[in-house]
Each structure stands twice: as structure tokens, then as C-alpha cells.
């Protein structure tokens, strides 16, 4: 089984030709990851901790670098999402990409490989390696197959993420040396580095290094401006992967590295981080409202939704963290679907400007229903997955910080405003397009239906029966919190609570 994981990762490198090979590879990976998921009970039964599979082979032993992978519920969910969206990405590119398809799919698969690596690796050097692996092909995806302003967008994306990534590399190296100095063994191993001791000042600096990479990727306002450009210029599959997966690596990094490595520094920075999360929620929502480019609009909704992630991560409790995990999955699906919609519309009318659209409901009823479902998901309608995510996050953050939670909840009203605007401008109203251009049947074709139907089923499943996913990530979440809490002198939530103190008890 472990060999399988490695094999599929390495085989990526040889992958170069044709959408069929791409589709087959990613589907195989999807099936493997689903099989793993179905087996999770038996896999977990063998170990005492959260890790289902561990794989370790020395790579450059001199520097303590090894090829180390490990799989727990959290990474399993993430790679399932990766391959699910990966299959969809290949399918959306089916017709869209005519220019040098071989190289395109090569890049696409390399991005997916990088992302998978990020989610699986337990060696920090390798982690950085994969972090870069997903960056460069993405640069090409935007720069070569993008829209009118692609070069600018690609540069911007590259510089933002590269610069922040270098800060992380610095932090990784310092951690490596600090650990080496104190313990005598120089290693990049995650588990070894978890036990590193350092002074609070050093911890603070190192944490900022990691944080920089992750919050740029996430992105947190004010480091978000690469995102609207990259999203709107990337090809559909590029936007899908960017929004659905790349942003999630930031969130994953926060959960996996920042908090367990530096709990003390995280607690110190928590109020500020949460504040930025809330600013992101509101700022993204306000900006999304006025965008006229469909893909830019969706990009700003991502900024808004990712605000919930950082709010939840720094609330340090199980509710919020589960909310974050759910948010990563559901946002991947719902925003991905909105980008695919934008792509489908672009294929039909060759514009992304929503002011020129309108009245599409009668022309493409199936697509309109899809758009309705996913814009409702985006505004957090209960019964769809995003509600579970946001509700859990907010319940969790409520016990950490009341004022900020209230403002975050107000963001839901903003979400309503921009989501309904999507529906209004594109599908409601009078048909504004030239009649002869919109006269033929424009509704989704079977291939596109094949893309959307699984997404709808999944988002509804996540909305009405998320327990099965929550259970999968339960152990990683609680363990992650336990490790972090173990390093602290006092447990999380020491701040006095006006309501609880009056009542004289708490639900904890």
C-alpha cells in the first residue's frame, strides 16, 4: 500500500502526453485514495496514534533528509479532495485547451503531484521541495494558457508565493540547526522537530517565517492581491486548482506546522491573526460585491471564505478546527464549481463581464440550477456543506473571541449580497445578449453535467451527513490540539469570560 503511494507520485514525472493518460492517472489516484478511506478503520486499528500509514526511506542521510510520507485522516481527506478536483480539472480542460496539450497536462499533473506531496510529506525539506513543485507548473499554467493579462498575473503569483516561501525556507533551516545544536542529530523529520525546544523569542521569529508562507497562500488580507489576478487570468482548471487546492495548502500548513510547532507564539499572535481573518471576511465580501468580472468576483469570495479558516485555526478548539477542515473541503468544491461555471460561460459567450450577461435562466436552465446551488453553498445555506463548516468555525471561535465572531457572522450578510448578485446579474433579468448569439441551445453538455453532478451530490452529502468526514479528521484534529496544548504552560482559553464567570461553569 505504501509502495502504491510512492509509485503514483513518482510516475507523475514521466507523465507527459494526452488527456486520456492524465485522466486515467488521476482517476486511479482518486480510486486509491478512496480505497484507503474505506479501509481507514482497519488502518487505524494497527496504530495507537493518528497515523494510518508511515513510510520512511533515507534520501540524503548526511543532512538528515529522508523521503518520509505519512497519512492521517486530515491528509487523507485532503488528497481525496485533490484527486477529486484533479479529475474535474482534467475534464474541464478537455475542450478548452487546444494549445500544446501535452505540456499542459504535464504541468497540471505536476501541480497535483506537488500538492499531494505537500499534504503527505513528513520531512520538512521535502515539504519545501513540494511547495516549490506546485508553484512552478502553476506559473506556467497561468502564464501560457491564461487569458489576456496572463503574464502579469503569472509574475505576480510567482513573486508573492516565492518570496513568502523563501521566508519559510529560512525558518525551516533555522529550526533544523536549532534542533541539531540542542539534540545532536540534524534532521528534517517532522516528528523529531516537533520536540525542539527554543526560547519564546526564537519561536516567535520562526513562526512568522512559516506564517508568512501560509498566509500569503491562504491568502490573508492584505496579502491577497495576487489571487484575483491569478484566478481571473488562469484557465478554468487553473482557477479550480488554485482555489480548490493551492489555498488549502496554506490552511493545512497552519494546522500541521504553525500551531503544533509554535503553540506559544501562536497564542500570542492569535488575536491579531483572528482580526485579520475577520478583516478578510468582510473585505473580501465587500470587494466581491462590486466586481464585474465573474472570475474576479469568485476570487474575492475565496478571500472572504479563507478568512474563516484563519479565524478558526487561531481559535484553538476542536469545533473550530473541524470547521476549518470542513471549510477546506467544501470551499474547494463550491468555489471550484463556481469557477467551472465561469469557464463554461466564457466558452459560450467569450466574456467574463457579468454586466453584459443576464436572463440566462431561460437559455440554460440546468446551468442556472447549478449556479443557484453553488451560490447558495457560498452564502452558507444549511443543508449544503459550507454551512457546517462556517457554523462549526463560528461556534468554535465564539468561545475564543466574541466580538470578532460577531463581525465574522456579519460577513454572512455580505456573502448573501454577493452570492445573490451572481444570480441576479447572470441568470435573472432580461436577456441582454444579442439575440442571435444566444438563440441556440446553450445549456450544459453531457461532459459538463458529468462534472457538476458529482459536485452537487458531494456538497449535499457534506451538508446533511458530514459526520463520516468529521470522524475521519477527528483524530488528527484532537491530536494536533493535544500536542500543541502539551507544550503550553496553561491550556488554551484562559481568558476570563464575562458570561461564564457569572454562570459559574462552562461546557468544556
Amino acid at each position, binding site marked *: 500500500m505504501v509502495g502504491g503511494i510512492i509509485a503514483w507520485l513518482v510516475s507523475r514525472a514521466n507523465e507527459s502526453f494526452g488527456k486520456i493518460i492524465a485522466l486515467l492517472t488521476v482517476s486511479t489516484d482518486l480510486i486509491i485514495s478512496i480505497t484507503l478511506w474505506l479501509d481507514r478503520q482497519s488502518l487505524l486499528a494497527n496504530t495507537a496514534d493518528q497515523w494510518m500509514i508511515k513510510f520512511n526511506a533515507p534520501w540524503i542521510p548526511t543532512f538528515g533528509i529522508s523521503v518520509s510520507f505519512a497519512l492521517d485522516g486530515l491528509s487523507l481527506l485532503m488528497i481525496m479532495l485533490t484527486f477529486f478536483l484533479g479529475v474535474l480539472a482534467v475534464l474541464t480542460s478537455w475542450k478548452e485547451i487546444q494549445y500544446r496539450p501535452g505540456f499542459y497536462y504535464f504541468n497540471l499533473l505536476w501541480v497535483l503531484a506537488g500538492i499531494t506531496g505537500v499534504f503527505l510529506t513528513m520531512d520538512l525539506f521535502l515539504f519545501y521541495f513540494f511547495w516549490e513543485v506546485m508553484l512552478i507548473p502553476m506559473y506556467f499554467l497561468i502564464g501560457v494558457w491564461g487569458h489576456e493579462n496572463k503574464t502579469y498575473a503569472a509574475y505576480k503569483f510567482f513573486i508573492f508565493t516565492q518570496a513568502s516561501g523563501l521566508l519559510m525556507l529560512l525558518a525551516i533551516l533555522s529550526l533544523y540547526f536549532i534542533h541539531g545544536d540542542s539534540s545532536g542529530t540534524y534532521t528534517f523529520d517532522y516528528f523529531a522537530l516537533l520536540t525542539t525546544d527554543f526560547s519564546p523569542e526564537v519561536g516567535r521569529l520562526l513562526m512568522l517565517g512559516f506564517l508568512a508562507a501560509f498566509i500569503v497562500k491562504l491568502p490573508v488580507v492584505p496579502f491577497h492581491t495576487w489571487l484575483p489576478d491569478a484566478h481571473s487570468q488562469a484557465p478554468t482548471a487553473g482557477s479550480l486548482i488554485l482555489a480548490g487546492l493551492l489555498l488549502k495548502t496554506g490552511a493545512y500548513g497552519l494546522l500541521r506546522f504553525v500551531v503544533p510547532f509554535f503553540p506559544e507564539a501562536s497564542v500570542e499572535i492569535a488575536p491579531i491573526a483572528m482580526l485579520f481573518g475577520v478583516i478578510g471576511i468582510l473585505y473580501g465580501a465587500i470587494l466581491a460585491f462590486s466586481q464585474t468580472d465573474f472570475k474576479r468576483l469568485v476570487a474575492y469570495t475565496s478571500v472572504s471564505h479563507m478568512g474563516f479558516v484563519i479565524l478558526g485555526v487561531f481559535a484553538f478548539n476542536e469545533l473550530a478546527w473541524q470547521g476549518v477542515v470542513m471549510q477546506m473541503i467544501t470551499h474547494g468544491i463550491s468555489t471550484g464549481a463556481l469557477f467551472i461555471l465561469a469557464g463554461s460561460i466564457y466558452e459560450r459567450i467569450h466574456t467574463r463581464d457579468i454586466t453584459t450577461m443576464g436572463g440566462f435562466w431561460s437559455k440554460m436552465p440546468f446551468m442556472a440550477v447549478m449556479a443557484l446551488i453553488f451560490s447558495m453553498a457560498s452564502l452558507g445555506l*444549511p443543508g449544503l456543506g459550507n454551512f457546517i463548516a462556517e457554523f462549526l468555525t463560528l461556534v468554535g471561535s465564539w468561545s475564543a473571541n466574541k466580538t470578532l*465572531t460577531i463581525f465574522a457572522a456579519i460577513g454572512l450578510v455580505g456573502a448573501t449580497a454577493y452570492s445573490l448578485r451572481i444570480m441576479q446579474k447572470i441568470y435573472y433579468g432580461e436577456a441582454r445578449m444579442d439575440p442571435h448569439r444566444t438563440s441556440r441551445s446553450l445549456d450544459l453538455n453531457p461532459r459538463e453535467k458529468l462534472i457538476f453532478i458529482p459536485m452537487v451530490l458531494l456538497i449535499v452529502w457534506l451538508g446533511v451527513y458530514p459526520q463520516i468526514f468529521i470522524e475521519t479528521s477527528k483524530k488528527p484534529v484532537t491530536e494536533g490540539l493535544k500536542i500543541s496544548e502539551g507544550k503550553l504552560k496553561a491550556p488554551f482559553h484562559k481568558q476570563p469570560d464575562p*458570561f461564564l464567570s457569572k454562570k459559574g461553569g462552562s461546557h468544556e
Partner: protein
Amino acid sequence: MEDFLWLVPALPLAGALILIVASGKLSKSVSGFIGAGSVGLSAVISIILGFRFLEDSTIVIKQHLWSWFDVADLAPDFALHLDALSMVFIFVITFVGFLIHLYSIEFMHDDEGFTRFFAYLNLFVCSMLILVLADNLVLMYLGWEGVGLCSYLLIGFWYKEEKNGYAARKAFIITRVGDTAMAIGLFMLFQTFGTLTIQEILNQAPQALPMDSETGTIIAFLLLGGAVGKSAQLPLQTWLPDAMAGPSPVSALIHAATMVTAGVYLITRTYAIFELAPLAQQWVGIIGATTLLIAGFSALTQNDLKRVLAYSTISQIGYMFLALGVGAYSAAIFHFMIHAFFKALLFLGAGAVIMVLHHEHDMFKMGGLQKKLPVIFWTFLIGSGSLAALPFITAGFYSKDQILWLSLAGEKGNIWFFLAALTGAFVTAIYTFRMVFLTFYGEEKTHVSHPVGSLISIPLIVLGVLSLIGGFIELPHTLGHLQLFTDYMAPVVPANVLTSGIESSEWLIQLSATALCILGVGIAYFFYMKRSDIRAELKRSMIVTNRFWYSGWGFDQLYDLIFVRPYVFISTINKNDIVDAFYAGIVSVSNFFHDAFARTQNGVMRWYIMGIVVGAIFVLSIGLLFN
């Protein structure tokens, strides 16, 4: 039969799914059959369940369907809870809903979105049933948002009109403001109680929350926030008049009979919290009293038949809130039920009138319809009588009289509540009969296109009968003293407590209400039937007030000014994202230096020599200076 409880919401859901999946492939008669049939079956089940409750209203039927999610003690389930209170609601929702579905088959027959309409309507019924049957607040919130979505979809049903889309968004966004308050309320409840199951909260509330505590009061106000949003009470009432852009059956079902009373349900359901927060409860009453007056005066000045009814709905829900505020829960629910009958009737009647008059909404262009449309006329008259609370014969009299009486005599009542309710009753009588006289009497101004068919008449007649006899299950002390409904509700809500020594004056209050009601009808008759010249003059002399009332007391303009415009302004002005300007700044600074330095590299020897010389001088002088 209890085991089939889940079918009550599941049937309409199944109907909706079939209609959505098979959209376009079904004939209209099949769509109509599925749409109405599924709700009809639900109605049959709930009526059978209802008989069980009539025998013994203390029973509680619980059904656990599946666990929703379970994280750190927060474990809401998909579980249903049926007690006497939710029984009343599911009866009204399925039964009135079924009648409205029947009516819609004829009403919407020529619409191209026929199937879509029934899909939405079924989905609405399902969400509303989940709302009232939910055993925990998270599931209730699911229904709560679900009805909001359906309301949005149905207001904007005729999506080609820009203004319908606007009205739909307005409704969704404004109610979402209330919902957000409610969501925060849920967070606080969870933190305080560690559970969101309604019955557990009600049981623990007296121990967990001391009387008049800060937490309890805040929670109650937040729940109230949710309630005023959905129920279109002050200050979030402005969406309802615009919601009339939807088809008339929608106005009847959603914006009169069921969804807008969700707030009443919420407060009644969580009464224990309001009982522990007297301040919040008092505010429920104040909001109710103010709203019923404001909306009543607005209704006086409207020209659009459906807007009159919309304002009257706001006003009548104000009565229910007033009743909740004085702790008269069963009176509020009683009025809810009677109101559902007569207001659905009025909206359906109005819809039929508008349909046969070629979509004419303006009452001043109607008239003389009592001969042409006898069924509609008589049923509409019954509905109006019930709305105006015509004494003794109409159901509305009995339900409203109880609220009037308890607003004064109830333990938490006071003279101001009573005066507001009494004035409201007077105004209601005037605007109701103004509407009747303008629409059905006088000369015919617009030609009637065709008579209505039986699918429209039958629901009207059934609702008309209910609006007449529905009140006889609850009679005041002075008139026979029958308390079937209060007794029925007794297991789920606290009984009405009267201030001592006031019982004797009940007849006086009834008499004054009766007198004012008849006076109101008389005034309407005088102005609109006899002396329209005086009316015109009066209108001219009060033109400012008139306009103010017509526009709904300027709330729309106010919100537009302080919320909508600033938001749109900030959003538009910052469309290009101010933060990006910072990064663009960095780019241009580096570009500038790049250009500047690039220019020095020009391949001309004397420039380079000059550079070296200047540099040498510079270094030397620095060396000298700091030596």
C-alpha cells in the same frame, strides 16, 4: 401512525426533487398532480396525527432519523419533535398549503415555469415543516434558511423583471440580517447550555439562567432579532410589502399564512428563555404594538390591493408579537391559526381578482365586482370581516379579542399595549373595508376577462368556512366561555395569568372593541361609498402624512441612506482594491530605479569616468569628514 411522521416533510421534498430532476419532461397536469398530491398526502397524515392530539394533547412524538454531526459535544441530529404546538403549525402548513397548491394549478396554468413553481412550492413546504418539527435549533435553522431561500426564489419567480429580482434579494438579505443575530444567539445558547436540543434547553433554562440575567437577556434579544427578520416586524419589516412581487399563491402561503409566522413560532418554542428575560419579553410586546400601528396606518394609504394585504399581515403579526410580549402564548398561536385561514383566503381572493382583471393591481381601477364574481366576493367579504374582527360571527373576532383582553388584563399587560391594540383594531376595520368597497362596489372600471374555475373557488370556500367557524373553539368568558384551544395548548406553554380583580371589566373591553370596529367600517363606508369628495379633500390636506404612510414610514429611504448606499459606495470605489495599489507602488518604485540605473549603463566612456570620479570624491570626502 407515529412512525410516519418523517413522511410529513419527506413527501413534499420528494415531490420537489422529482419536479426538479424531471424538469421540462413532465406535462403540466402531472407536475400539478405531483406538487399538490405530495402536500395533500402530508396533510392527510398530519390530520390523522392531529386526531391523536385532540384526544390527548400531552403526548409527544419523537423521531430520530440520523445523526447530523458530532463535534466536541455539539451533536445536533436530524430528529423530529411533534407536540401540541408544532401540531398546530404542521396542520396549518400542510392543510392551507394543500389548498394553495390546488389553487395554483389553475392560477399558474398558463405560466411557462409551471413545473419550476411547484418544485419551489414543495421545497418551501418541506423546509417549513422541518422548521417547526426540528428537535434542535440547528435543524430548525436549516428549515429557517430553507424557507428564506424558497421565499427568495418565489418572489423572484418572474425573473425577467428586474424589480422582482430586486425585491427577492431585498427579502433574502434583510431576513439574513435577522438570521445572523439568531445564529449568534445559537452560539451563546450552546456555550451556556452545552446543547442545542430545544427540550433540553427548556428544561435546563430555569437552573442555568437566573432570572433577569445578562446572558439570558442577550440571548432572548438575539432570538428576537431572528424573529423580527422573518416575521417582518420593526425594524426589519421593509421587505414584506415588496415581496408581493411574487405570484399571489406565494404571497398567500409564504408571506401571509406560514413563513412570516416563523418568528412567532420561534419565540413560543423558546418561551422559557423569554420568561427568564422580562426585559426582552417586554420588548417583544413593544415591537408588536409599534409594528401593528405603523403597518396599519401604512395600509390605509396603499393603492395596490396586495400591498394593503401585505401591510395588514405585518400589522396582524404585530398582534401576535404583542400577545407573546404579555405572555399570552396560546392567544398568539390561536391568532396565528385564524390569521392563516383568513389571510390566505384574502390573498387568494385578491390574486383571483387581479388575474381576471388582466393583472390590474390598483384598487382605484377596480370596482363593481360583487355581481360579476360572486364566489370571490362573498369569500373575500368573509375574510375581510375576519380581518376586521367583525363581532360574534367571524373567527378573527374571537382570536383578536383575546389578545386585546390579555394585553390589558394579562399579568404583563398594561394600558399602553391595550390602547395600541385597540387603535390598531379601529384602523384595521377602516382599511379592510376601504379595500372591500373600492374593489367590489361602485362602478365597474376594468372589464372581467373570464370567470374563475372550480380549483380556485373550492379553496376559497373551504378557507371561508374556516374563517367563520374557526373561532368558535375558543370563546371568551362573557360569551359562553369555551377554552378548547387554550386547554389544547396547555401542555406546551404556560397558561395566561390575569391581574387580579380585573375580570369584571371584560365585557367593557369587548364592547369598546366592537364599537370601534363598527365605527371603522362606517367611516370606510362614508368616505369611499358616500362622500368621495370629502375624502379627496382630506387626502389633499394631509398629503405629507399620506405620502409618509404610503412609503411605509420612510424606513426604506432611511435604510437606503444609511446602509445600502454607503455599502455600494465603498464597494464600488474600492473595486480595484486599494491594497493592490501598495504593491503596484512597489512595482513602480523598482521600475523607476531600474530605469534610472539602466540609463547610467549607456556605453559612453566619459560617463563612466565621470561616475568613477564622482564616486571617488564622495568616498574621499566621507573619509575626511569622519576622520
